[in-house]
């Protein structure tokens, strides 16, 4: 059995550094994501939020450090263990990254078909169920990604990320490019899914509304490190200049009312 604290932290990032050419993007960064929480991840543009996400999921090589997901060290894991981990997480990319030559239905079924040997009937039913969960009607199933609106692309991408019922989802700016009502619905959706499916959510965002309404905990990235992590109240109490500007700026006041 795993140690209790291992079970508690679903992602453990220790001392990771990432370098592009001579610029150090992440510099000895530490971060824990607890099971069942929605972690909002913020920071100035270009601070490396997406880089951290991509490093955790293994798309960007790191020069040092250690990453554990579900208590498995991803560097030490063999191919089979890695595949096991990949099956238990879902990723929503910033631009959706839907396969443009497949229909919505094929996009959602793609990972399921790959990992599970189930009948076409169950696949179709699950597709409709997932589309329903993300608030889309079954009719969109036979459309191609180029025929969808921006908001629908994000929803379909979320449905694909959820296709295998993952325990952990990474959302990279899920509400960017959505209208405020759509963004609000999306936050609500993430909350609902987290409750119903018991998800852990790692959400990179710029959206203050999302931070207020959807997130349990917030982590702030700056200078390649986590400069603060905690609840919304902790963030507002912080004296760090960037945090003050971010959480007490004009837009933040508008959100808080």
């Amino acid at each position, binding site marked *: 059995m795993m140690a209790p604290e291992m079970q508690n932290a679903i992602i453990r990032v220790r001392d990771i550094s990432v370098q592009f050419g001579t610029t150090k993007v992440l510099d000895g960064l530490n971060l824990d994501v607890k099971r069942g929480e929605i972690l909002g991840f913020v920071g100035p543009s270009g601070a490396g939020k997406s880089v951290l996400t991509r490093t955790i999921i293994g798309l960007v090589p790191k020069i040092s450090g250690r990453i554990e997901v579900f208590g498995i060290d991803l560097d030490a894991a063999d191919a089979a263990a890695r595949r096991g981990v990949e099956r238990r997480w879902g990723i929503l990319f910033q631009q959706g990254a839907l396969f443009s030559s497949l229909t919505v239905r094929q996009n959602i079924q793609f990972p399921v078909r790959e990992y599970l040997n189930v009948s076409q*009937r*169950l696949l179709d039913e*699950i597709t409709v169920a997932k589309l329903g969960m993300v608030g889309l009607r079954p009719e969109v199933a036979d459309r191609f990604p180029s025929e969808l609106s921006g908001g629908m692309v994000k929803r379909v991408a979320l449905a694909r990320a959820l296709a295998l019922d993952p325990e952990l989802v990474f959302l990279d700016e899920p509400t960017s490019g959505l209208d405020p009502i759509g963004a609000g619905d999306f936050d609500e959706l993430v909350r609902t899914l987290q409750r119903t*499916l018991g998800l852990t959510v790692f959400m990179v965002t710029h959206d203050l509304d999302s931070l207020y309404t959807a997130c349990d905990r917030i982590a702030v990235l700056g200078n390649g490190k986590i400069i603060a992590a905690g609840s919304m109240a902790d963030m507002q109490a912080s004296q760090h200049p960037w945090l003050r500007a971010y959480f007490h700026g004009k837009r933040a006041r508008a959100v808080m009312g």
Partner: protein
Amino acid sequence: MNGDPTLERIARGNGLALCAAGSWTARFAPVLEQIVADAEKLTGSRPNIFIDVSQVSKLDTFGAWLIERLRRSLTQGGVEAKIAGLSANYSSLVDEVRRVKTAPAFDTTSVTVAGMLEQVGRSMAGIGATMVGLIDMLGAVLAASGRVMIHPRGFRLTSTVHHLEQVCWRAVPIVVLITFLIGCIISQQGIFHFRKFGADIFVVDMLGVLVLREIGVLLVAIMVAGRSGSAYTAELGSMKMREEIDALRTMGFDPIEVLILPRMLALIIALPILAFLGAIAALYGGGLVAWLYGGVDPEAFLLRLRDAISIDHFTVGIIKAPVMAAVIGIVACVEGLAVQGSAESLGQHTTSSVVKGIFLVIVMDGVFAIFFASIGM
């Protein structure tokens, strides 16, 4: 970690309880499907059935949906089916899947004779549409060049030079190498067969006429269609996909003038230059092989070449080059602008750009052959 899923049947009076246990999750989906399919056959055996899920250790969308599917098919069979023992954690998930409407039958189009005939008809109509599209683009390009001639400030010199570097300067090594090799092969084959008649020296006539009139320009045009035509289609196609062309239009620029005219012009300048270099490389290669393999020394080769070919042969070849360039360019641009949203569409149009480009180049070559023959060149 968690036990395999099971569904036990326990008789309860005149009813039946189905006790689900273990983890009803995606991992066990194939097993679960079988279990549920078996349980669905119970329809009609009892008037009421309880589905007891209190022993389920783990539930996700797959499991919840299969339980819901079981409930629905039992209900449809006239059995009173109820789900019982749902824990609070999972009730919202089950509520969620309960709202799912039964999957509409996704229609799959079957292959029929009528369907195949329809396809043939559509592709014939498609050929007509392609021709219209090409003529349309030719007109648009001519109109744009007219506008540029009236207002020379609208001409994009930097862009033209950039494309000239891409399609001309960077193409020189590969074009020269391939035409050189083809020249060698023609010469070797010629000598091999002509030697039987003691007519070795006539290989120079054949090489000169063939390379200057036909092979030089045709080969280079085919290479350029594959190399630059495809690049144009892919560039314009991905710009179309990312709405860059729409952006240009809304800023008041004409995409034909900004994107297509410089490309066309670069190609029209490049192809004669490449054809000329290609012809020289082929003659050089042919001469080299004639010397080393056929024993025709360079002086004799040059003397014979001077007698065998006239300036007409060279002119015939080089006149064709810009026309072929225009054909390749127009096909590539039309295909590029026809790209739809998907990566697959980009691939299809790039393929058809090269295929149509090469086809039309060969057709043009035939038309030119008839034309030059009738004017006696």
